[in-house]
Structures are given as structure tokens and as C-alpha cells.
């Protein structure tokens, strides 16, 4: 049985014999024991790794890029910087068309508390402030920056902070000033998370190094290559939140990262690194809290209500790196991978680099059918590869077309196999929700069956043998309910 996406490894991914043997073994194992299945689970009882109930084991192909160090690429001719690349209010431009900017210079400011500023990712000239495509389709305002290719591209805006003498308020302000958002994909302004609700006391910082999305290895490389900055960031965040301890949760497919972090952790600090089971969606906040602490975030509550704040490793490494230097976020690590990519890898990419530029660089196969920003499970498929890499984009995954596989696409009625119930990490009943969605009972879905708890992780649609687009049904139902409320 072939697994949905092609199993062909890109060239140069450790020769051809290794994946071939892996493929043969995968064919021998039963569906339940294969990473895609999650059937009996009996064999997993003996594996003593911390984990959460349910979830799925998709084929990850992280080996294509896990050993590839982060590389820099040349600058794209023009960078596209959407004003709304984070959650919250869009930034407001500080520059005019025709103005020259230096790499690192602020070019837009935060519009309120839940908003962040933006910095020039390269030295160049503002070409336009105009509409640009977004992965969602509709266009959004963006600053177009034409890069001076001959410029040495030094970052000139180094004010520098002595982070040890800063007050908590100053740290929060500096995090906002740096334009930091959650780099794991949520793109939620980081400083907001540093100000938990009044009724909550943070005792534990959880550092999310799970990276459970298939194909992506950027967090893995950050943990290996930016360990010092990561530890610095963790210590700073612990101080600001008042947490008594920090736990770095890493999936056990990245044990070298655990070793690396443990080696660099200062003794006598309450920071530990723990391996958790490699299972999707281990990297979801609620799942990781359950895995590491055995606690559940109450329905309608925040992690802060169980005394936890969760930060992605990439975000903390950036905090640890940028704050002492007083710089803004102008680049990030992105994994470019997928079956349709010729030379996958991990790259330090200036914010605003068009996806087309990156894909040209790694090369794509003629079979390319779909380009996804983010991960293959929760990422968004783009309608145009002219969209730029924004702060929240952790990966670009290029998949092959699969029209020639109608068996994958044909939708059957729900056969009540229960696979989706055993996959849903939130413990919903997607089978029932799917039937209600088909009957357009959107209200009942929310009131009787906890629709609002679904975070669209895609596990149910992934396992459904009837190919029912469950997750998409739930997305639509939620948006209809939202409209009805307004």
C-alpha cells in the first residue's frame, strides 16, 4: 500500500537503499503498527515515554532534513512584508515609498497592545506599500522592500540591553519592540503571553520543542544550533513569569537535541529537558501539558489557569538572541521539504522572502501539485507561490499531485469504524459531529458535542477510511456558528 503522499525521497537524502528498506519494512508491518495507524496500541504499552491519549502516527520523513544545518540563502530581489503577519491588530507603516532603510531598522510600529512592530529584513529601498497575496487568498496591505544586493547587509540598529538588570516591565516592552511572535505557527504576539490573566499564577514554563508536524525540522535544528540563546531565553522568561521551573518537551525522534540541551543546561537551575513520545499532535499546547504534567487545561480556560505558560523553542531562542542585542525579528529558520522538493533543507530566511524564491532555490519536481505554508497537517495550501514567508511560517512543504489515486479521494458514508474517536486528541466524537454537519445541525454540534473544543488538528480526517473531510466540516460549522452569534 502506498502512503498517500509519495514515498520517494528527494535525491541526496542518505542514498537510495535506506529509504527503500524502510519502505519494504513499512509494507510488512500492519496498518495498526505503522506510523499512520494507531490501532491496537498494545505494543506501545511497553514504551515508557510521557504522552497524551489518542493522536496519530503519520509518516514524517524528517530524516530528509534533520541532519541539514541551517544555511543562509541570498536575498530575494524584493521582500514582501504584510502588515498583518501576526494575530491582533496589523502594524502601522513608519516608512514612505522611496525611502531607504537599513537592515534592522523599524519600518512599522505596533498598533496597540496585541500587536507588534516590524523591522527591515534587509538594507534597501521601499518600493511600494500595496496589496499583496496571502495564503488565505484575499489580499492584504504589505510593504515591498527592494533589496540592495551589493550592500554588505550589516545590522545597524544595535541598541543593546543588559537583560539582567531589566525590570519585568522592561523585558515585556522589549519583547514587543523586537516584534516577536510565536514562531511555532500561531504567530501570537509573545509579550502578551508574558502578561498572564490576573487570576492565574504561573509556576511552570513549558518549552515546546516537539515539532510534531511531519517534514518540519526547523525547531530541531534551532535546538541543536542555538542552544545557548535558547537557554538564555528560557531563563529570562522564567524570571518574568515568576515560574519556579521550566520543562523542555522534545519528541523522542530528536533525542540528540535533548542531549545537546542537557549538556548546555546550567546545573542548579530548575530547568529540565524531557523526551515525550513522537506522536501527532504532541506539539499542541494542551497535549504537551497533558503529557508532561498530566494536567488538562479546563474547557474555556487558558494554560495559565493550570499554572503553565507554553513557548515554542524558536521563539525563546529568538528572545535569548535578540533581546541582549536590542534587535528586531528580521529572519527565521524555515524547513523547505516534501516529496516534490529536490534538495530539501533548513534555511535562515529573511522575513518577506517570496515562496517562489525559496522553491527555485531548492528545486521542485515536475510532479509538484501543492505548496503548503506551515506543516502538512495544519498548514495552509497556497493559491499562489508569490506569497511571502511571514513570521509564523515554520516550513514550506511541497507535495506531489495525487489525482491518479482516486481511491484516496472517493468519499464513502461513515462506516462507524470509530477510528476518528480513537484519533481525536481532544476526545470528541468526530463521527457524530460529521453526521450533524451533513445535516447542517451546526448549533447542536456546538451545544451537544463540544464542537468549539476542536482545534482543527486534522487527526480525524487523517485516519478516516471513508475519506470524509471531517476537519473541513468542523471549520465551516464553527465559522457559521460564529456568524450566527454576531
Amino acid at each position, binding site marked *: 500500500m502506498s502512503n498517500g503522499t509519495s514515498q520517494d525521497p528527494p535525491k541526496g537524502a542518505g542514498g537510495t537503499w535506506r529509504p527503500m528498506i524502510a519502505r519494504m519494512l513499512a509494507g510488512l508491518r500492519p496498518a495498526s503498527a505503522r506510523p499512520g495507524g494507531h490501532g491496537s496500541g498494545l505494543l506501545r504499552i511497553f514504551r515508557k515515554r510521557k504522552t497524551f491519549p489518542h493522536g496519530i502516527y503519520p509518516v514524517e520523513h524528517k530524516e530528509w532534513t534533520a541532519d541539514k544545518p541551517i544555511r543562509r540563502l541570498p536575498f530575494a530581489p524584493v521582500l514582501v512584508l504584510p502588515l498583518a503577519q501576526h494575530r491582533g491588530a496589523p502594524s502601522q507603516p513608519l516608512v514612505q515609498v522611496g525611502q531607504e532603510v537599513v537592515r534592522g531598522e523599524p519600518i512599522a510600529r505596533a498598533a496597540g497592545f496585541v500587536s507588534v512592530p516590524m523591522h527591515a529584513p534587509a538594507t534597501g529601498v521601499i518600493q511600494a506599500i500595496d496589496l499583496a497575496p496571502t495564503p488565505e487568498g484575499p489580499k492584504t496591505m504589505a510593504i515591498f522592500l527592494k533589496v540592495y544586493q551589493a550592500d554588505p547587509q550589516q545590522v545597524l540598529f544595535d541598541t543593546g540591553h543588559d537583560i539582567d538588570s531589566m525590570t519585568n516591565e522592561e523585558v515585556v516592552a522589549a519583547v514587543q519592540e523586537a516584534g516577536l511572535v510565536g514562531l511555532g505557527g500561531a504567530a501570537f504576539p509573545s509579550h502578551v503571553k508574558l502578561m498572564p490573566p490576573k487570576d492565574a499564577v504561573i509556576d511552570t514554563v513549558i518549552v515546546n520543542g516537539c515539532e510534531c508536524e511531519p517534514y518540519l525540522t526547523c525547531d530541531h535544528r534551532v535546538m541543536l544550533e542555538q542552544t545557548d540563546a535558547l537557554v538564555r531565553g528560557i531563563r529570562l522568561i522564567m524570571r518574568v513569569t515568576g515560574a519556579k521551573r521550566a520543562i523542555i518537551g522534545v519528541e523522542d525522534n530528536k533525542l540528540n537535541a535533548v542531549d545537546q540541551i542537557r549538556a548546555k543546561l546550567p546545573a542548579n537551575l530548575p530547568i529540565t529537558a524531557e523526551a515525550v513520545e513522537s506522536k501527532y499532535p504532541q506539539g499542541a499546547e494542551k497535549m504537551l501539558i497533558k503529557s508532561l504534567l498530566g494536567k488538562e487545561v479546563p474547557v474555556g480556560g487558558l494554560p495559565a489557569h493550570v499554572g503553565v505558560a507554553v513557548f515554542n523553542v524558536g521563539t525563546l531562542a529568538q528572545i535569548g538572541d535578540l533581546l541582549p542585542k536590542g534587535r528586531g525579528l528580521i529572519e527565521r529558520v524555515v524547513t523547505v521539504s516534501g516529496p516534490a522538493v529536490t534538495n530539501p533543507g533548513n534555511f535562515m530566511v529573511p522575513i518577506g522572502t517570496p515562496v517562489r524564491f525559496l522553491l527555485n532555490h531548492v528545486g521542485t519536481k515536475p510532479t509538484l501539485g501543492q505548496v503548503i505554508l506551515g506543516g*502538512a497537517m495544519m498548514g495552509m495550501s497556497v493559491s499562489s507561490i508569490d506569497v511571502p514567508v511571514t513570521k509564523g511560517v515554520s516550513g514550506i512543504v511541497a507535495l506531489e499531485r495525487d489525482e491518479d489515486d482516486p481511491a484516496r479521494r472517493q468519499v464513502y458514508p461513515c462506516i462507524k469504524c*470509530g477510528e476518528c474517536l480513537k484519533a481525536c486528541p481532544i476526545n470528541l466524537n468526530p463521527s457524530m459531529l460529521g453526521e450533524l454537519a451533513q445535516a447542517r445541525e451546526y448549533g447542536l454540534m456546538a451545544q451537544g458535542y463540544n464542537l468549539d*473544543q476542536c482545534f482543527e488538528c486534522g487527526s480525524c480526517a487523517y485516519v478516516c477510511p471513508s475519506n470524509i473531510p471531517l476537519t473541513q466540516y468542523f471549520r465551516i460549522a464553527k465559522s457559521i456558528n460564529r456568524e450566527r452569534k454576531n
Partner: protein
Amino acid sequence: MVKGIEIRTSPHLKRALNVQQIMRSVVYAMLPICAFAIWQFGLSAALLLATTTGAAVATEAWFSRLRGAGNTVADWSAVITGILLGLTLPPGFPLWMAAVAAFVGIGLGKALFGGLGYNVMNPALIGRAFVQAAFPVAITTWTPAFAPSRFVELIPTTLTAPFMRPESVTDWIAGLGVDSWTGATPLAMQKFQHVETPAWDTFAGLVSGSAGETSALLILVCGLWLAWRGCLDWRIPASVLAGAALTALPFWLVDPGLYPSPWFVLSSGGLMLAAWFMASDMVASPVTPWGAIIYGVFIGALTVIIRLFGGLVEGVMYAILLGNAAGPLISAWTQPRVYGAVKKARAKS
């Protein structure tokens, strides 16, 4: 470089297992059982299985034409129903009655509800229940296993003309020269004469009974393979068998002379086949993991109670049909507890 990229909604990956593959795996898992049935009962069993399968597929094709929504034969579920039905009938069952059973099973048991995914009960059992009521004699006419002439001649009842009563097989059996033929299955002998057939014979399947139910061992192996492939919820057969064994245990402890041993209960009759291939029918069983266990135990216990105290020799068919009927209710009772639900009473799962 890039032309015509597609836009899809997440998730962009999909597990390879689909309905068609699951159904096909179930068919594969039943093939060894069919082969054993044919080896044991000869040509008649082969014709019987071919008839039920053919009739089931034809009925499915006909109804899907009526519905006008594409041909649903390709999902293989009708093949499963056909084979399963054949396996539960006596080997010498008249072919025309078998065809009626298949037609009723697919037509009444499935198509009428709206086809695959909507049937409340297992279609094969609906078919069998119908012929059990309509042809009570034919469905309890047993013939010996391993008759010497089984590959050269048919059991006389097999080719009964439609709407005719099948002739008696007593003389034919007498002419076979099979020693110690009592005309009863191990279940009936236990029930009415309290003679327990040696455990190994019932387990290995060296006894008479319905075409495909005799070898508990073979069924167990095929079922385990299916569970290992992820095409069957192991909870259901496990809890059916546990429910049956635990219900039988106290009676046997009280009076081993009168009541069957749990071991005999598990290995005899149609229980093993029913537990692995009929109770486990995904569509007609509860969708929730705990529901599956309750449903299984219910069926197992009910089967033993019917066997011990009911008028029937074998109760598993009615037990499953009742279980199917209770399925939606059981599902509703056992809705999963959502992550972070505020009442922290049940910390389980």
C-alpha cells in the same frame, strides 16, 4: 517552473487505509475459512458460498442501480455479506433458499436503510434470521463433515427446486457409511444429551455444523490477522468471548455435568465466527471505544443465556441482532469525555 498548483484544506496528509481496503482485507481473512468449509463439506459448501455471494452482489448492484448513485458493489461490503451468510448456513442448505437469504439480507437489511454505513443491523444476520423463520427444517438439517463422497456428489438437499420442500437426508447419510453419526451438532448434543464433544474436536473444527463456523482455531487466526491489520476493533471479539466465558463459568462450576464448560462454549457453535466477523461489523456496532466493550459483553452473555435456557440451540445470531439494535443507545451512553471537561469526576481516558 510551477503551473497549476492545487489548493486543498488541511490536513494535507491522509492515512492510506480506506473503506475499500478494509473491506477487501475482511474478504481475504474469510477466504481460508471458506477453503476449510469446502474441504470439510465438499461441493455443496462451494456452491452454497458461490450462491450467497453471487446473490448478495447482484442484489447490491440492483439496488444501487435503483438508487442511481453509482455502483456500490466496488466497496466490497456486499461480498462480505454474501460470504458471511454462506458460512453461517448448513452446508446442505438448498441453494434457492440461500439466494433468498442473501436477497433479504442486502435488500431489507441494508439497501432499505440507505446502503453501506446506514444499516442498523448486520445484513448477513438479517438474511439468516429470515430463513431461520421461513425454513425452520432446512436450517437445522445437518450433514456429516468429511463425507467420503463430498467431492463427487452434492448433498441431496442442495439442489432442491425453488419453492419445493427439500427431501429428507436420513437415507442419504445412512448410505454414506459414516460411523457414529447422531444427526446433531456438538451444541445440540451438549444441550439435550449433556454430552460434551471433546474440546480439541470443536476447537479444530472436526465436527459438523454450519459451513464455516466449525473451526474455532482457524477463525481465531484469521480474526487476529485482521485485528493486526487494523481492520477490526479487537475490543469487540475480545469482549464477546470474555462475556460468554464469564457467563458460562458459574453454571459450569455449579454443575459440570449439566452445563457446558466455558471452553466448550467458546469453541462450539457459531460463537467464534460471530465474535470475529459479525459482532465486529463496524457499521452496526457502537462507535465509541467503551461502547464497543459494553456491546461485546452484552452479546457474549446473551448468547450463553439463550444457549442454556432458551429454546434454541444456538443464540449468537439473536444476541448480535439485539446488540445491534441497542448499539445507538450504547453509543449515546458512552460519549467520550472531552479533554478539560470541567467536572473532574472521571479522570479516566
